[in-house]
C-alpha cells in the first residue's frame, strides 16, 4: 500500500476532521486577527465544550441540544476571559492562561471523571447518518459542512451589524474607536465570547466524533488553530471577511492533511512532534521566504527603485 494510493482516503478523512477543527481555528482567528488579542483560553474551552456535550449526552439530552450547550459554555468561559482582560486590566495572554487553568478543575467537575466514553451513544453525526444513510466519514463531512455554513453565515451577518463593525473597529484601532464613542471593553468581551463559543463548539463536535471526551484533550489545540490560520494566510492573502473564514476552513483541512501524511512515513515515533514543528516552521516562514524572493525578482526586473 503506497501513500499515493492512500491519498484520496487520507484527504477525505482529513477533510472530515479539518471541517470540525476549523471551528476552533475560526474561534482563534476572531480574537487573534480581528481583535488583535492573543487568547490562550482555547486550551481550556476546547475540552470544556467536549465535557459539557458529553455529560449532556450521557444524561440523555439530544445531541443537538448537547452541542448547543457546549457552544454556550464556551461563551461563558470567553466572557470570563474578557472580563479579566478588559475590566480587571490583566494582560490578554495571562487572562487566557488564568481562565484555561481554572477551566481544568471546572471541566473535571463537570465530567465527574477524567474521561467520558461516548462509544455507542447517539451523537450529532449518527443522526445525520440515519437520515442520509452514508458512511460515517461522510456523515461527519455533511454535519461539519452544515454546522460550518451556519456558523460562517451567522458570523458574516453579525460582523456586518453595528456591533460587529464596532468589534472590527476596536481591533483595528482601539483609540480611534473609543474616540468615536465605541465601548471597546464591551466589544472585546463580545469578541471573546463568540470566539470561545466557536472553540467549545469544535470541542463538543470532536468529542462526539472521537467517541470520548477527555480532560487532557486541550493540550496543543491553540497550535492547531494558529497553524490553520497561518496556512490560510500563506495561501490566500487579503481576502474579505467571509472569504477569509472559508480559507481558514481550507487551512484547517490542509493542516490535518499534512499531519495525516506525516503519519504515513515510517518515522521514529518519538520524533512525531519534531516533524510537526518543522512543518509549522516551514508554513510560518514561507511568507518571509516568498517576500525575499519576490523582492529580488522585482529588483532584477525593474530599473527604478522597488519599495
Amino acid at each position, binding site marked *: 500500500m503506497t501513500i499515493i494510493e492512500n491519498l484520496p482516503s487520507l484527504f477525505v478523512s482529513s477533510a472530515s476532521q479539518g471541517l470540525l477543527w476549523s471551528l476552533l481555528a475560526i474561534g482563534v482567528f476572531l480574537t487573534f486577527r480581528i481583535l488583535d488579542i492573543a487568547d490562550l483560553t482555547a486550551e481550556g474551552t476546547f475540552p470544556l465544550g467536549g465535557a459539557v456535550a458529553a455529560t449532556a449526552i450521557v444524561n440523555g439530552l439530544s445531541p443537538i441540544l448537547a452541542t448547543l450547550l457546549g457552544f454556550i459554555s464556551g461563551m461563558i468561559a470567553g466572557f470570563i476571559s474578557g472580563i479579566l482582560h478588559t475590566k480587571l486590566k490583566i494582560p490578554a495572554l495571562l487572562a487566557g492562561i488564568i481562565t484555561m487553568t481554572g477551566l481544568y478543575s471546572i471541566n473535571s467537575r463537570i465530567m465527574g471523571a477524567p474521561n467520558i466514553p*461516548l462509544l455507542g451513544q447517539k451523537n450529532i453525526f449518527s443522526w445525520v447518518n440515519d437520515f442520509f444513510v452514508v458512511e460515517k466519514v461522510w456523515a461527519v463531512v455533511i454535519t461539519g459542512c452544515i454546522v460550518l455554513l451556519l456558523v460562517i453565515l451567522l458570523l458574516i451577518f453579525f460582523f456586518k451589524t453595528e456591533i460587529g463593525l464596532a468589534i472590527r473597529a476596536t481591533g483595528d484601532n482601539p483609540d480611534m474607536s473609543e474616540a468615536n464613542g465605541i465601548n471597546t471593553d464591551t466589544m472585546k468581551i463580545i469578541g471573546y465570547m463568540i470566539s470561545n463559543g466557536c472553540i467549545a463548539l469544535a470541542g463538543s463536535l470532536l468529542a462526539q466524533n472521537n467517541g470520548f471526551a477527555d480532560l487532557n484533550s486541550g493540550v496543543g489545540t491553540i497550535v492547531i488553530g494558529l497553524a490553520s490560520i497561518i*496556512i490560510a494566510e*500563506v495561501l490566500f492573502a487579503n481576502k474579505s471577511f467571509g472569504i477569509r473564514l472559508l480559507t481558514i476552513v481550507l487551512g484547517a483541512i490542509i493542516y490535518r492533511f499534512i499531519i495525516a501524511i*506525516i503519519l504515513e512515513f515510517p518515522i521514529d515515533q518519538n520524533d*512525531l512532534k519534531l516533524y510537526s514543528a518543522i512543518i509549522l516552521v516551514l508554513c510560518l516562514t514561507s511568507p518571509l521566504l516568498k517576500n525575499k524572493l519576490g523582492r529580488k525578482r522585482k529588483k532584477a526586473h525593474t530599473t527604478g527603485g522597488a519599495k
Partner: protein
Amino acid sequence: MKKRRWKTGLALLAGVALFGLSACKSTSNSSSNSKVKTIGVLQLVEHDSLDDAYKGFVAGLKENGYKEGDNLKLIFQNAQNNQDNLKSMSEKLVKEKPDLLLGIATPSAQSLLNETQTTPIVVTAVTDLKAAKLVQSDKKPGGNVTGTTDMVPIKQQIALLMSIVPKAKKVGIMYNSGEANSKIQAALAKKELQKAGVTVVEKTASTTNDVQQVTTSLANNTDAIYIPTDNTFASAASVVGEIAKEKKIPVITGSVGQTNDGGLATYGIDYRSLGKQTAKMAVKILKGKASPATMPVESSTDLQLVVNKEMAKALGIDPSSIKAPK
C-alpha cells in the same frame, strides 16, 4: 502575487508528498507474504509503564512464534500525548487492514474502538474497561475488544502499607485527578485506608511541576504516603523519592517502576509481564482460537513484592522485614 502564494503552498504540499513517496518504498514490500500477520499499535504517550507494556507485548508475540520482519508486521503509532492525533492515527491503522489492533492506555483504546467494530482489538494499561465502555462486562466483553487491566491489587497494597507503618494515624494519597485510572484507584485506596482506621489526606497535582510541593505538603503532615499507578507521579518519582528520604516518610506506590524510582515498596504488577499476558490473548485471536467477544478481561497474574533497598536504608527500615501481604 496571488499566483506565487499558490505556488508556495503547492510546493509545500508537493514536497511533503514526495517525501512520502520516497519513504513508502521501503515499507511496502512486506505484505506480499500471506502468512504475515499485521498488528496496529496505538499508544497514548511514551512513558515507562506504557513502553514496558508494549515491549512485553512484542516479547510475548516472539515467544509464541510471531517475529517482527519474519511473519509479523507491527505498525506502531504514538500520539505523544496530543489527543488530536489519536483520531488520524486510528484511521491510519484501521486502513492498513490489520489482523489485530493493540490500544495502550484508555483514550487510545477508545479511539480505536470508535474506528472499527469489526477488527479485533486487545487493550492493555486500561484500569477499568467497562467504565471506559470498551467492553459490556469484564467476564463477557461482547464486542471486538478484550485485553488486560492494569488494576493493581489495592487491598494488598494498603495491607502492605499498614504492615510497614502499623502505628500510622494519617496517610496521604497523591495522584493526578486528570487521569481516569488514578482517580478510580485513589478512591479504592481511600476506602481501604479508612477501613484500617486511619485518617486520609488527599492531594492532587495536574502536572509534574506541582509534584514537589504536593509531596512536601503531604510529607509534613502524614505518617506514610500512597501513590496509585499515576502517569504524572510516575514521571516525577525521583522528586518524590528525594523528599521521602529527607522527611523520612515511607511511600508505597502502585507500580514497580515508581518504587524503583523513588518509592519504598509495592506489591504490584509488572507492565512487561502484563504486556506478555496481553500478547498471549492476542495470539489466541490471531490463530482464530478465540474471539474478543467471549474472552474475559484478564488482570495481572504476576504480582510481586518489590522493595527499594536504598530507600529502606535511608528510612532506617530493614528491607527483609517487609513481607508480601497475604
